[in-house]
């Protein structure tokens, strides 16, 4: 009993493949970022990629709070916006003094701006977690956003402050006028920030953040002050949010008070949560999806925000782990090789679910366009909002889809249980 055998020491060693896998993933990401604009070379896709890249950094920075440390913030845009403002001011100063500072350094300035604000207010804000933190973050958010309209000399009122990214000294012959150069600048920072934020989760601080999230009380009894942990996490989140803000400033060459507002704070919460806060890559998926929806949905429907709300509610109620949570649920099944037994039931369930979703869409669009008289074009079929046939179709799809979907999802659950049992037997599930 006294001398335990040593197999656990062997188990404590790093799995040999993991380091390779680790670098491999980032290498692949780097290659993808380089190649992406060569495949989708139109100006439109380039614009989208830039926005998505910034959104990824922003959402990941938010997840340092929500996912890693368990802090629900309703004012994360404050750091993002202040980072953007600082970046713009520094860019203007650099340009007017002809300082030898190239543009790619500027996001770092944004990061410092975001971090500086976090440093200033963070100690008081992070005294408490939970609802109190959420409320303070909301209050600080509103306070800063409103104050920005009063402090015109710094924030430039509603029009904001403009800058010219090409007025800084060129680097390697790049002036950063063309969007493609900005894209590579953003891509570089996305990669660096993502690696840095991932690395942060693998540090002692990162691990203790998780502990604070799970059980702040117990953390106090293993030597840590949860307040300090939250404060540090808040500063790091502020830093990376500031980088995102700085990149936005470079991309749009403007910073205005809308950067700081509740809409931005809400969007980043949506992104992180829809993507899934429990996994590092969750917010990345969320940022891509939300930005894409934001760009795409707005040209298709005027009530795009309602779809956001509905998707968000759906995720909260039925998949609180977000997209990443859904995906990762399947990992043990894949490893155990039992995923195949679930897929047929998925396919069966997909049909009524899709019908249900289409019914919801049709209902929403019918109401939205009832007075306008626009025709709804759903899967190429035109529906007239004022026609009873449309209402009937919507009702049939919603009610029928719901009833059938309920049955089919029960079958999915059964199939899932069988597959999970097998997976458990094979040792892939706890």
């Amino acid at each position, binding site marked *: *009993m*006294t001398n*335990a*055998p*040593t*197999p*656990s*020491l062997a*188990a*404590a*060693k*790093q799995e040999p493949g993991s380091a390779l896998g680790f670098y491999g993933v980032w290498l692949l990401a780097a290659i993808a970022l380089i190649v992406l604009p060569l495949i989708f070379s139109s100006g439109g896709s380039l614009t989208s990629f830039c926005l998505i890249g910034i959104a990824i950094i922003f959402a990941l920075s938010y997840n340092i709070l929500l996912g890693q440390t368990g802090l629900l913030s309703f004012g994360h845009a404050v750091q993002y916006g202040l980072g953007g403002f600082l970046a713009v001011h520094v860019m203007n100063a650099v340009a007017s003094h002809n300082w030898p500072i190239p543009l790619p350094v500027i996001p770092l300035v944004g990061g410092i701006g975001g971090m500086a604000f976090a440093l200033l207010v963070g100690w008081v804000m992070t005294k408490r977690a939970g609802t109190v933190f959420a409320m303070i973050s909301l209050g600080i958010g509103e306070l800063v956003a409103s104050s920005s309209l009063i402090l015109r000399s710094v924030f430039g009122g509603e029009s904001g402050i403009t800058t010219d990214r090409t007025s800084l000294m060129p680097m390697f012959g790049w002036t950063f006028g063309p969007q493609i150069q900005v894209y590579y600048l953003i891509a570089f920072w996305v990669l660096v920030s993502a690696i840095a934020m991932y*690395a*942060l989760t*693998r*540090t*002692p*601080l*990162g*691990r*203790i953040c*998780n*502990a604070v*999230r*799970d*059980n702040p*009380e*117990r*953390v*106090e*009894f*293993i*030597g*840590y*002050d949860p307040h*300090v*942990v939250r404060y*540090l996490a808040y500063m*790091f989140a502020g830093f990376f949010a500031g980088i995102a803000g700085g990149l936005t400033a470079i991309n749009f060459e403007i910073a205005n008070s809308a950067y700081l507002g509740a809409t931005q704070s809400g969007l980043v919460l949506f992104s992180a949560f829809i993507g899934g806060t*429990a996994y590092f890559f969750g917010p990345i998926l969320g940022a891509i999806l939300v930005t894409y929806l934001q760009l795409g949905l707005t040209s298709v429907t005027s009530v795009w925000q309602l779809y956001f709300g509905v998707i968000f509610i759906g995720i909260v109620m039925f998949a609180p782990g977000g997209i990443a949570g859904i995906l990762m649920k399947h990992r043990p099944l894949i490893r155990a090789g039992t995923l195949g037994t679930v897929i047929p039931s998925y396919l069966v369930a997909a049909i009524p679910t899709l019908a249900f979703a289409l019914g919801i869409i049709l209902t929403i669009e019918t109401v939205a366009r009832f007075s306008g008289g626009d025709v709804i074009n759903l899967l190429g079929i035109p529906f007239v909002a004022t026609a009873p046939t449309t209402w009937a179709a919507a009702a049939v799809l919603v009610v029928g889809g719901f009833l059938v979907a309920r049955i089919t999802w029960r079958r999915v659950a059964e199939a899932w249980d069988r597959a999970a049992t097998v997976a458990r037997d094979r040792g892939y599930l*706890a």
Partner: protein
Amino acid sequence: MTAAIQVNAVEKSFGNVQIIRDLNLNVAKGERHAIIGPNGAGKSTTFNLISGHIKPTSGEIRLNGEVTSGLRPFEINRRGLSRSFQVTNVFARMTVWENVRCAVLWATGHRYAFWKNVDNLPEVRQRTAQILDDIHLSHRRDVPAGLLTYAEQRELEIGITIAGGASVIMLDEPTAGMSHAETERAVALIRRLTEGRTLVIVEHDMSVVFGLADRISVLVYGHIIASGTPEEIRGNPKVKEAYLGEEVD
């Protein structure tokens, strides 16, 4: 030699209700000290006072001679005291391995470091692995703590408590709710892991108490009515009258 724990004339009230009255307790270094008493006597409150979870209304608490009353729990922990909880209190979403590792980090001097890769700290790794071995949870290292069985969670609780290498260990009913066999295993574990350290334990199971403790203090209505070796306590008429007579046959 200074005592490991010294509690001098501590009082604690919640509103108008006084829970702890004139509490005096001395635990010598290296001693295994059990606190017993009927339900509601204030045993957990005493633990909470000593570990800094709550602050005394008046009086003074010393750890290894240094005044600790008024300090925050993490400050007391850093001075060498670690405690467990009666209700399992682990990091539910983190794996067993991570639970123990988190408890090792401060003591190994890594603190709030954000420039070190936690997987590349050999000392932390070895110590964590050693503790997992000690608490027989090596085979469960990658399981989230929330999914462990009850007995396993109790063992993990002890593992987290001792992981930091504190010189004073306080265990709050470590065997509560365990089967007989599990209890035996846990007692052996505690005995081995607290070798050379000071142990303060609250326990209801008298066989555990009398088998493990060097000294015993009896707490009744927030006041220690007797303190001594197991034999002394057995023979103490006050204890018999107040408590033992009903509880231990």
